[in-house]
């Protein structure tokens, strides 16, 4: 039976209430540090690493923004571990990417207390600034979004969030529940023993589970799944040939930002910026000769297709690629539609479990006979 703590808060005091919890776990030695979204003065919310209990006041976990995927930060902190215990407050997509990175040995969860928050979506970084300017707060967002109103003025949450079927996190120790908690309250759920111990140490009061939560989550997932399937169908119809794909990518300038932002593109340096793709003048001329012309910079489609082969099995659908594109190419559906197919092919789901072997790491002698169509 999961253990819950209910945090009721007065208006504009959600973060104050939450900071009490984080203060508690730091002060009482449950962890040595907290990585959580924190307000950066009046503008912007960013993940920050807090080691002093006195500095937990600025936490804002439910702020609808994720400028950089927390999975990347988790990797920075633990790939070469400090040996100190860290509580990480991450979004479901970030956690799912983290799960993939664990398998890729880029994250080490040994000393991590993973805290997942309910996610109702995030705004693009610039939109979030506008949101704040218009007086938006995490509280207002939670209330509006639960009522189905994620849009604020002329902007809405990221396209990826609208079709995200994982509003609640898994593979965590503690969960910050907002969905179905009712106005003026959030819950903290201890999912593991480790989480329970931390929750108890934090000093918050243990209480009942939020009554309407499961139902609310289910409903939300259903809405998003439907939106997802619609989006997939649309996108697939739009890009059922290379010509169309080429047009989608026509604004691409080979900046490779999408792969820098991608939490599961974990290479130190993309192969496309290495010597392998530093061609000679002679080669360019040869390619140009072939059809009479060559788009420059070249290798654009090559890059995107290669990226799909590399990351589609790990893709968690966070949409950071779209957010990162300086030329507003909506890359998310490109990767998600492929990921949907490739993960299904291997009955794999990125981010589902640390135990699940990544498909390219193994093989079975008796499988995939349809590939060669040859018996035995």
């Amino acid at each position: 039976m999961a253990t819950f703590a209910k945090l009721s808060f007065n208006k504009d005091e959600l973060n104050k209430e939450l900071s009490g919890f984080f203060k508690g776990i730091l002060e009482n030695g449950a962890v040595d540090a907290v990585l959580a979204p924190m307000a950066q003065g009046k503008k912007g919310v960013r993940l920050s690493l807090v080691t002093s209990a006195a500095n937990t006041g600025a936490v804002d976990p439910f702020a609808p923004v994720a400028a950089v995927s927390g999975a990347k930060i988790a990797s920075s902190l633990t790939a070469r571990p400090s040996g100190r215990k860290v509580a990480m407050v991450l979004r479901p997509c970030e956690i799912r990417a983290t799960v993939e990175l664990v398998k890729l040995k880029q994250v080490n969860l040994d000393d991590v207390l993973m805290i997942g928050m309910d996610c109702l979506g995030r705004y693009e970084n610039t939109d979030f600034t506008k949101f704040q300017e218009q007086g938006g707060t995490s509280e207002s967002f939670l209330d509006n979004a639960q009522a189905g109103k994620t849009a604020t003025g002329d902007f809405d949450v990221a396209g990826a969030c609208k079709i995200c079927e994982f509003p609640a996190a898994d593979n965590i120790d503690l969960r910050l529940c907002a969905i179905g908690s009712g106005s003026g309250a959030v819950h903290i759920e201890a999912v593991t023993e480790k989480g329970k111990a931390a929750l108890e140490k934090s000093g918050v009061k243990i209480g009942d589970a939020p009554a309407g939560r499961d139902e609310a989550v289910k409903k939300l997932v259903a809405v998003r799944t439907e939106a997802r399937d619609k989006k997939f169908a649309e996108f697939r119809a739009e890009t059922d040939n290379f010509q169309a794909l080429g047009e989608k990518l026509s604004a691409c300038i080979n900046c490779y930002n999408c792969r820098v932002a991608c939490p599961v593109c974990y290479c130190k340096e993309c192969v496309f910026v290495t010597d392998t793709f530093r061609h000679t003048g002679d080669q360019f001329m040869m390619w140009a000769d072939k059809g009479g012309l060559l788009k420059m910079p070249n290798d654009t489609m090559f890059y995107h297709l290669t990226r799909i082969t590399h990351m589609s099995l790990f893709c968690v659908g966070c949409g950071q690629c779209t957010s990162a594109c300086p030329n507003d190419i909506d890359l998310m559906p490109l990767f998600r539609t492929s990921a949907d197919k490739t993960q299904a092919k291997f009955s794999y789901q990125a981010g589902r479990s640390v135990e699940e072997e990544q498909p390219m790491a193994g093989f079975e002698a008796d499988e995939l006979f349809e590939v060669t169509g040859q018996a035995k």
Partner: protein
Amino acid sequence: MAEKKPTGTVLVAGAGISGIKAAIELAEVGYKVLLTDASTQIGGILAKLDYQFPTDHCGMCRMLPMVGREYSSQYCMRKSLFHENIEIMPFAEIQAVHGDAGNYKVDLLKRARYVDPSLCNELEECIAVCPVEVADEFNHGLTKRRAIYQAIPHNTPKMLAIDMQACTSCGECVKVCTSGAINLEAQDEMETREVHSIILASGVKLYNTREFEDAKSYAVSPDVVSSLAFERMMSSSGSYRDGEIKRPSDGKPAKNIAWIQCMGSRNRRQKRDYCSSICCMFALKEAVLAKEKGGPGVESTIFYMDMRTFGKGFQQYRDDAVEKHGVNLIRCRVQGVMKKPDGALEIRYFDPETNEFFIKEYDLVVLSTGQIPYETHKKWADLLNVGLDSRGLLATEEYSKIRLAGKPGLFICGSLMGLTDVSEAMSSGIAAAGEATKFLCGIGADTVKEEEIPEPTANERELSQVSVALCKCGEKPGAEGIDYALLSAELQKYHSVGEVQIVESFCKDNGETAAVDILSQTKCNRLLIGACQPFMYRQNLKNVARKAGFNSSLVEVFDLFGIARQGMTQPSIKEWTMRAAHEVRADIEKLNFKPALHVSALPINQNALVVGGGFGGMQSALSLAIRGVPVHLVEKDGQLGGYLGNNVEATVDGLAPMAKAQDMQLKVYQNKNITVHLNCEVESTVGTLGSFESKLVYKDSGETSYLHHGAVIMATGGHEGATTEYGLGTSDLVMTQGQLKKGLASGDIDVSGTENIVMIQCVGSRQKEGRRYCSRICCMWAIANALKIKEKNPDARVFILYRDVMTYGFYEQYYSKARTAGIIFMNYSLDNKPQMEMVEGKPVVKFMDTVLNEEIELTADLLVLSTGVDPEESNNKLASAFKVGLNDDGFLAEADSKWRPIEFQQVGLYLAGTAHSPMPLKSVIMQAEAAAQKAYAYLSGREVHTAGVVSKVKDAHCIRCQRCVNICPYGARSYDDMENCISVDPAACQACGMCAVECQNNAAEVAGWTDKQLFAVIDAKLMDDLLLSPVE
């Protein structure tokens, strides 16, 4: 000044796979080998087999040494064999042997081929004009050939010959031959060679139903074929086409096919009271293949007496054949085949499963024809003036299958020992090479000293520029097909090409000097040589290039003539040349982007570790020690000898293991090169190839020590299995064969008053639960014990309840001997196992007799169980220490079950004896010799050279995700925790490139196979703007 030692020279007579293996192993150590064969080609029987157990595909190339893998496809064994220390002399017969061990003079009759292969341009126009057609013996008459012909269609280079018996001397071939290679007046020639040692690997004659007395009963139609002929029917270079097995008489698809086993074998009437060992597996494989290759609806039925699936993996194959493929097995030897008026082949048989007679029609009948050894053995005995044993076979030493008795320097291997499967042919070939090596060491013969040409360094910062050198190939008129001036001009157009040189001939002596002169002058830093037969000359050409100042990794060779010819029929000279220019572009680009490779030499620690002090271990230790190798022999028990040496006084074939073990122990302890570690086990091992450090733990004291060694031979042996069936352990009257053997030897078991003794074979063996395999020796053990009982008490009745009597090969004689001694063999089936209950203190065995189809009840005074052989549990620890595999049954998993039975994937690691699978003593000793030879060859190399083509880590790009470590099939990659980096063991890496694919940012790369190179090759391949015209 000391006299120069002579180079050790060995004649290997017979170029089937065992002879080839022996030759390769000797050549690798550095001895000169003359490999002869009586036929026009090499390859023996295996040249005819496209499909080999257990994967049913060809794997001959796996017998090649594990070096130069990058080029090994050129070494396809089905084509030919190339080694600088091996001289191949096909179509030659040994006429006389003079002299004695260490100094043989051999008179060889070199038969006239009438076509000189060194002049032949391989255009085969002579074949096209030859008016004579005769049956092609390679395809067992299924196809026709001309009088001038190439015996094995896929041999490269082509080795044409004229069949003078068929030739009408019309001279048409001479007229069309532009190279003057044909001489119809050619004569056989005699040549005398001096060799130190001789290995006989001629194989034996096979039974031919058309030649022998059974012809009238079985070979009644062209649709009754031998098993070898059936192989050719399944081969695309035979008569197999369009997914159908065609019956010879009318070309109709054969759907219902029957195999009849034991043709000419196990036949006392024909004075062939032996088994031919391999036919059962042969038939099973063919029956499975027929179902796979023959299209839907093919039915395979095998008529057999005992299905002898005694070897490693055989029983599993049989089970799969029946259960997965639906092959019918019927235990009935049929009296004959009847040809019906419509050509169908009728067989009447008695099915013991239903106890009924059936008459069935078949489209094709395959006779599993066995060996005819006596003629061959007699011929060798006369030639070499050696004795035959009582059976009429060449007499080998008591404990050896290889060493001819009383004739040092003379050895046999392969099917001369009795028909052998591939695995045993390999082991025996290596073992024979081992014996010859020991002999050559003993007489002080030297190995070939390689001339070291220093490797020029490559300046990697230079821009790459390729020089192309085209060989005009001197006098070979085939080269006329290329317009060199045009080709040269075309190649010059490529940006990467700096210069194009034309060389008269690389392979002729003076040509080499000329080539070096020309090449030394070029300003380019990479060299691409276009010549013929690159697989033959690659090494030489690389040496030429080195002399001219090229780093050999930056020199490539391509097949100038082969490359252009593919897919072109009757091209004009221009077409051909343009095509060559186009095709070679990919090679140019690949070389252009190739980085210089560096080969490093890692020293090999000269100690050998032998694990297991039984016969396998002792034999390998002694074999290495007498060649001067320091050996550490580790035994887990308190004394040497293993299970056999400590428990078994005598075997059925008259060996005395306990006495022999005493004798060998003495030799082991006396040999100063051997250090024995008793009560000791290998706990763990660290280190890389050539330099292992093993932790030894002494069980009694708990002490540990560390041993540095370069090679290891795992000879852990096995022991008699245990069972809880049949009340073993609950009554004194129930015991295992091992217990009975001991008891009979010591006299503890007295059979003088015993009436009935019942033995049950395969207890807990050859079944899904328990031991899935046949333990190979239990039938012989049971027979030995039964005979012993009969000797002590002729009135005792001994019943042996069996499933299949596994007295394979010449062990068959002991089965016969047992029957004539009155021992009664009764068959039972697995789904009707004998039941036992104790009645009045005596075991009563009930079972269904498949002959009388009646339940039989036997009251036994002794019930003896054959409980099989179990592997040692210590195999687990050993396997994990050395990162080698175990099979599902707990035996060590060798590198390749057919072609590399003695070694593991990694060099320096070997196995022998029962650690591999249960086997009789002589086979253990043979494998031990083979393992010792492999270890010796490895250690005597002193250094292990990393291949230049090897996987690398670009550390700056590496994110340490370790996917490459996980994917490497050789364990060559590891993550170094201390250094936080990925390291590659360059000696273990086989450059398969899987890590390179797995690594997404190319931090793992195989030098010589980089993405950059492959991209350039793909570009070149797709730059084809020539008009494509399909050639049918």
